[in-house]
């Protein structure tokens, strides 16, 4: 690794629908993250935002709109589309070149101003072959879930238990959009959206303006006595057509391998203390356990059953409630970084896990059946 980059502050807004306008929400979060370390906008180096025009309330070229309210006036700022972990990594890169000693990473997605998520994901399809059949992300996930259950003997109950765990965890998260004590039956007998997926196993559509302030090693020492260090990052993109892919043999293991290599991790199950992962569909959390190397292939259900990934387990996964609890589509990857940072700093409040956290993983995915994955490793 060429140098060190630290997270020095984080901020986010609540996921439930808000009548506050976009500009104000973005301003409040931007101001909060800078104020937390007493950094003046004039002293801020660069900004990388994440947003997607399709999830931006009908305004194209999204970052034109929020340029000033996120501190961009006469700054060298840029933007990433689709996945906010891209923006996180781009900010790290900008600091590592030595031109900037601080970077604001901000992801913006105001769910309440957007149509249903799948009205947007339908627009990922090509207009000729797949749009006409109405393919969208939830449908692709349903294919994947069916295949996963058949190939590895995963049960619907095991998938539902992910939702029970995460929605229970989110009771401790003041920012979470959806929360509650549910039983496996509650989850399984909620409305069947696209078989075998039921409503409670599908992430909601949430508000999410999420900010992370990065700093160089030297600057971090000035700004905070609790830096969280960037340790590694990896991403990988899969081919486009579902028929060209094995939906159970995706790109997450490649993305994770790249991140682990950078962070010097050889045994993720032992070396990672906590994971915040993106599971827009409950069963995917089980699949991602396997691809992240937390358990062998096909054993995600068993790992969950063992209790290891519970909030009080040895490897807590999504103590915040994850994406099933809070799903601002583009911002959700960076929100995982925020949650992992709070855990590493011991500042997660009611959702702070029992075990000591020294190394944490944040994961983001977007696209049909996980077409793209990104993984970041953070350490105290």
């Amino acid at each position: 690794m060429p140098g060190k980059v630290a997270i020095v502050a984080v901020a986010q807004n609540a996921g439930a629908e808000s009548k506050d306008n976009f500009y104000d929400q973005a301003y409040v979060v931007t101001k909060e993250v800078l104020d937390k370390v007493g950094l003046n906008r004039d002293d801020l180096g660069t900004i990388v935002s994440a947003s997607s025009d399709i999830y931006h309330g009908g305004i194209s070229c999204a970052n034109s709109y929020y340029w000033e309210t996120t501190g961009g006036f006469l700054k060298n700022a840029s933007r990433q589309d689709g996945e906010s972990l891209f923006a996180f990594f781009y900010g790290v890169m900008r600091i590592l070149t030595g031109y900037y000693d601080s970077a604001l990473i901000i992801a913006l997605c105001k769910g309440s101003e957007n149509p249903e998520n799948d009205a947007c994901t339908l627009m990922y399809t090509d207009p000729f072959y797949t749009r006409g059949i109405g393919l969208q992300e939830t449908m692709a996930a349903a294919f994947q879930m069916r295949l996963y259950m058949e190939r590895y003997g995963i049960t619907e109950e095991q998938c539902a238990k992910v939702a029970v765990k995460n929605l229970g965890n989110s009771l401790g998260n003041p920012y979470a959009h959806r929360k509650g004590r549910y039983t496996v039956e509650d989850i399984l007998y909620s409305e069947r959206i696209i078989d075998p997926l039921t409503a409670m196993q599908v992430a909601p559509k949430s508000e999410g303006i999420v900010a992370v302030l990065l700093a160089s090693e030297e600057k971090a020492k000035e700004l905070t006595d609790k830096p969280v260090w960037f340790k590694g990052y990896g991403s990988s993109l899969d081919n486009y057509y579902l028929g060209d892919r094995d939906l159970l043999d995706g790109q997450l293991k490649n993305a994770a391998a790249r991140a682990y290599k950078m962070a010097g991790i050889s045994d993720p199950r032992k070396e990672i203390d906590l994971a915040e992962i993106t599971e827009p569909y409950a069963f995917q959390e089980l699949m991602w356990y396997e691809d992240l190397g937390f358990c062998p292939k096909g054993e995600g259900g068993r790992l969950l059953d063992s209790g290891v990934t519970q909030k009080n387990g040895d490897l807590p996964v999504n103590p915040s409630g994850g994406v099933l609890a809070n799903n601002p589509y583009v911002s959700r990857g960076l929100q995982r970084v925020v949650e992992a940072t709070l855990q590493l700093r011991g500042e997660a409040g009611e959702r702070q896990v029992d075990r000591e956290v020294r190394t944490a993983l944040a994961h983001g995915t977007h696209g049909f059946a996980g077409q793209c994955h990104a993984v970041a490793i953070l350490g105290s």
Partner: protein
Amino acid sequence: MGRPVAIIGVGQTNHGRRMDVCYPDLVREAVVRVYEETGLNPDDIDGVVSGTMPSMMEGVALTHFYFADAMKAGGKPILKTETCGSTGVSIAHTAYYWISSGMADLILAVGHEKMNEGDSQATMTTVAEPFYQRYFIAGAPGVFSMQSQMWSVRYGLEEEKVRDAAAFISVTHHDSAFDNPYAHIKMQVTMEDVKTSRVITYPVRLLDVCPNSDGACAVLFASDKMVKKLGLDKVAWVKGVGYRGEEYYFGDSDKAVWQSAVEAARQAYDMAGIKDPRKELDVAEVYNPFTFQEMMFYECFGFCGLGEAPDLVLKGTFARNGELPCDPSGGTLCTNPIGATGLIRTAEAALQVMGKAGDHQIPGAKTALSHAMGGVDQFNGIMIVGSEL
């Protein structure tokens, strides 16, 4: 600071109205060409950066999904950079920072747009928010025409002279496009043709305006270590990078002295150690969708003083055989697939300093500036390349 980064190869589509190919095939054409040009293949690449204007211009969102195969990006790390019209140059910046940070040695940058499959002006109107600005901003020409009027009035420029200078730019760029095998519009135009062409938004006329093009551009960026490993001698080193953005609401800013353009250029010049751009640059690829605006850029980039551009244009200072040739490729005025356009500027600047620009080569070009603009007249990005490290 950072590690040195070079452009080692360029692939462009034959830009134009490409109804013979679908959008992914258009992207594929540019990507295949850059691999053919460099003799490298996708296995050698550490990552891919792609980008476009609002994806919905062609009705497909998050296009990195759609083009995963065409970009040969399956199994690769990916970034997706979008900054409206300046997307192309922002893609180049992303590739630069990726390598300069030490996180990669070889990055493929791809910009693309297939504007004939959508309604570009309708799409651009949606860049304006729906409550206050959208009613007044009918696509791009409305904003840019207001800006050129503001500039003429501010410096007391004689209307006829400005009109002549803009027409001169149109004539010379259209001539240059004949020497660029990839250019879209290839037509002979006279000063009279430009000045009598249909008014789009006064004072801008049809021949002052860029076309809607289909096109893609793919550029390979490499670390100094990789340049040495591959034994390359003709490369374009990145010397300066600058980017700035200003107010979203059109009325909040002074567009006659375009702060983001001035400051973006200053950042790039500082990094490249350039003090007198007109002397030290050998060629510039300025993003010029509108002739009038090109003159404002000359001034903001310090090629001449404020309000001086029309006189110098008419003297031929910025023509192909002038002191600082601008847009010898024909520029955006003759080819504008928006998401690719900024990257084409950088690619053309790189070809010039590598001595590979063919019939539109500026002899002996060693240092070249490339530029793109975007947002509601809001963003400016610069990349300067040179033949020497």
